[in-house]
């Protein structure tokens, strides 16, 4: 008799737990306000990444097309993957002295692991994080970028 009773109480308990689970899923079905997904391409205009989001490495330029990079190559040395290459050139400055300045700051986005060592170690704060995250391109060579803009010069206050 006891076994008979257990048999049914077991079924009852089982069904109760199943109904509890269904209560949750059914509850969410009638709560469309809890939907958490983002409508990504539609909300592109309003979508803003966080300030410190690691999208890519960029070199900020001011209105006079001036950046802060001295071309010292510390970022190149610190990069674990060799995703930064710095080409320098010699130029005579206003005082007539020959100085080494950055010619091309080449950044291979495809090789970057976003560890942030280049930005952390940069002595003149020339590079920083950009918030772009849509990096899809049809040609891999487009992922190699030159960070300093053509014709840009170094800011005066930055010492080489």
């Amino acid at each position, binding site marked *: 008799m006891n076994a008979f009773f257990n048999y049914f109480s077991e079924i009852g308990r089982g069904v109760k737990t199943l109904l509890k689970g269904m209560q949750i899923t059914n509850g969410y079905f009638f709560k469309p306000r809890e939907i958490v997904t983002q409508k990504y391409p539609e909300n592109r205009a309003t979508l803003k990444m966080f*300030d*410190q989001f690691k999208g890519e490495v960029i070199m900020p330029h001011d209105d006079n097309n001036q950046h802060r990079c001295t071309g010292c190559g510390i970022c190149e040395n610190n990069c674990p993957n060799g995703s930064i290459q710095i080409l320098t050139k010699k130029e005579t400055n206003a005082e007539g002295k020959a100085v080494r300045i950055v010619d091309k700051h080449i950044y291979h986005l495809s090789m970057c692991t*976003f560890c*942030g060592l280049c930005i952390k170690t940069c002595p003149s704060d020339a590079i920083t*994080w950009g918030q772009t995250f849509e990096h899809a391109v049809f040609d891999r060579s487009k992922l190699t970028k030159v960070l300093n803009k053509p014709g840009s010069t170094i800011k005066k206050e930055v010492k080489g």
Partner: protein
Amino acid sequence: MVEKAEVILGENEQYVINMGPQHPSTHGVLRFELSLKGEIVDKVVPHCGYIHRGIEKMCEANTYQQIIHLTDRMDYLSAHPNNEAVSLLVEKALGIEVPERVKVIRTMLSELGRLGSHQLWWAAFGMDLGALTTFFYGLRDREKILDIFEESFGSRLLHSYICPGGLMNDIHPNFKTRVKELIPYLRKKLPEYDQLLTGNVIFTERSKNIGIMTKEDAISYGITGPSGRGSGFACDVRKAEPYSAYDRVDFKEILMTEGDTFARYQVRILEMYESIKILEQLVDQIPDGDYTVKMKPIIKLPEGEYYQRVETARGELGVYAVSTGEKFPDRMRFRTPNFSNLFIIDKLARGHKIADLVAISGSLDLVIPDIDR
């Protein structure tokens, strides 16, 4: 037709199937070679190495700062403890004392990472057992944690945030309020996990008395983390060798004695509550101060051997470094928790069904890149 039947059955009447490397429930590129007798698993031979990247070899050509970003890629679901292990090792070798602020933040990040990792595990475990909705509920809640990560240090998965000497940059001013919002949210949502899965009769039937691991086995095989604690092996490094701020927070080491799949499940669920408790204690106690100590640009460890262990979401991560005084380590060895946790699966799954094998491998919470390194 006779010929074809022989092709399928193979030798010794054993029905051998390859589960993986591309299979929904191995969670990555892991391959099990199963010998079956009907539905019953006779033998499991795990094959790994499909995502072997030679991190240990790469470390021999990287400075200690650069090693940090490689450790991210081992256990990517709880990346902070991996970074922390190397950082602690370097700090110990150099005798650096990091500021209090760093210690507290590191602890909080580890616990947030653990929460997120356990939530993802819960999600995937439910899916392994066929409850597809759990996947989305788990990820939904994990998303809140990832948002906190993203706001403070810009990435959601591979943070490279904890570095020798402190942190890469300071936490975002919103960090505190975000965590404070998170705690009541999780307290509300976590009981749903129990309601949906833990209490469910199908779930308990499928997980109780499946894959029983004795405490002796757990110690002998070196099963650490929640999987080991499910068998009563008190292996929590946070308790045994408190690092960062774990010595001043009050939390329980969850221990279960059953050692079956359900016990391992229950340990992780209860650990989530403990993590929330730790966060609650620390969120108001983040002291002001520096987020890093001044380090030399090139770190050279004094000659010798160093060993540091931390508790990741999956168990004990040991970092063993041999230094010859150069800027690169002579040998860097990571004793990853999943590597040890994987190989008991043959013992656990024998005599159970294929469906149980999936449940057991899910309950061990394997992250394949952590096995292969």
